[in-house]
């Protein structure tokens, strides 16, 4: 993707001034990535697209709240989308299992649900060149971290999903985050 964080930061500053063309530039440059993030959490294209739309409503109205000194534009956008997707996931939990039919894409994800978040996590480590540093995290620790980040699961759901005690899962997630912090700092990685 040719778009850089500098481009995004500039466009967001224009969006804060109600520049519709800049708003569309931000949308076009980031929507495929952001829909992917929402879809991993919600597992349904229609709901993920609703979250994407709500998120960009938020971007239009709150672009002035973006501060390039505090966050990179992509992180700011991902946070909006993740928070909305997580809220949507938790508010719709009861109806989701019973009444919403999974679409084809969701079925494909469900098929290897157990491995996929962990694979995404490992691809990230490789891309960030921190896989050697992260190597001493056990498979279970990785899976706990991956389910929390990519699927928006809370500790109890992770414990249920991988059949481990709640206290153990909390410790795994904590250890995963500590290790991630240490490895990113050691590698001098900047957020994308």
């Amino acid at each position, binding site marked *: 993707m040719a778009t850089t964080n500098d481009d995004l930061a500039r466009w967001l500053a224009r969006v804060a001034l109600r520049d519709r063309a800049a708003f569309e530039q931000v949308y076009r440059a980031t929507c495929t*990535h952001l829909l992917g*993030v929402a879809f991993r959490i919600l597992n349904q294209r229609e709901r993920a*697209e609703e979250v994407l739309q709500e998120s960009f409503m938020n971007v239009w109205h709150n672009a002035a*709240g973006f501060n390039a000194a505090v*966050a990179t534009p992509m*992180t700011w956008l991902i946070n909006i989308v993740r928070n909305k997707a997580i809220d949507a996931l*938790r508010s719709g939990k009861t109806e989701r299992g019973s009444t919403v039919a999974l679409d084809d894409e969701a079925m494909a994800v469900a098929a290897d649900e157990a491995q996929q978040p962990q694979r995404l996590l490992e*691809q990230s480590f490789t891309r960030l060149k921190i896989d050697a540093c992260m190597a001493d995290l056990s498979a279970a620790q990785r899976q706990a971290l991956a389910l*929390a980040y*990519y699927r928006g699961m809370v500790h109890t759901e992770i414990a249920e999903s991988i059949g481990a005690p709640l206290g153990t899962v909390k410790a795994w997630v904590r250890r995963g985050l500590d290790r991630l912090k240490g490895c990113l700092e050691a590698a001098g990685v900047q957020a994308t």
Partner: protein
Amino acid sequence: MNYLQPERLDRLAREYALGTLHGGARRRFERVLRQSAAAGLAVGVWQERLATLAGSVPAMQPSEAVWRGLEQRLFAPAAAAKPASSAWAWLGALLSGRTLGGALAGVFLCVLLLRSQPGLIGAEPQTDGLPASYVGLLTDAAGKPTVLASSRRQGNVLTVKMLQPVAVPAGQVAQLWALPKDGGAPFPVAVVPAQGSARVALAATSEKLFFNVPRLAVSLEARPAVAGDKPTGEFVLTGNCVKLW
């Protein structure tokens, strides 16, 4: 609890950023976030770290309807009127021209109402804005603002404020109806008081009830309506129902 004690703050910040903080704890921490720069920074650091993990998520092309919907929701009403000159203009443009003055006055009353009841405020992460809500302002035949109805988007309590008393004949009730888009059948929402304020439980979340509802109305009925009932009398009050987000 002192949320800002460094170790506790870091634990909450990382759990919030990751998403494992949930329910009441998440909402309480969001309130802390709105007030504390230290909390915002602690969360920001973790969000930057975790965002590095998003790079491996496969991209997905959204349908063009997402962008068209955004244009429609953000720009269509404003394009018909004057260019948006303030954050409120888009909202104003949604309200009918004739009652615009009264409607905006009503919205600002709503702001005051919400400000005076901090318990109603919450949930919207990282902004100082009002929470996502549905707001209705009903006027009488003379166009005078009469009922202000508001409810949090994911809430199931409707706050009704009577801006002027309504004459409800003995033996009748003032019944509030939702009028769905595209001429769908009106469905009963709640009975409103003749004067003063009330908090009324709704049958479902506002989002479920009002997502497709651009208009509200009040009729006088012999008894409170139940699901499936239709209005029997004339609408004595009508108004717009808008999304406050």
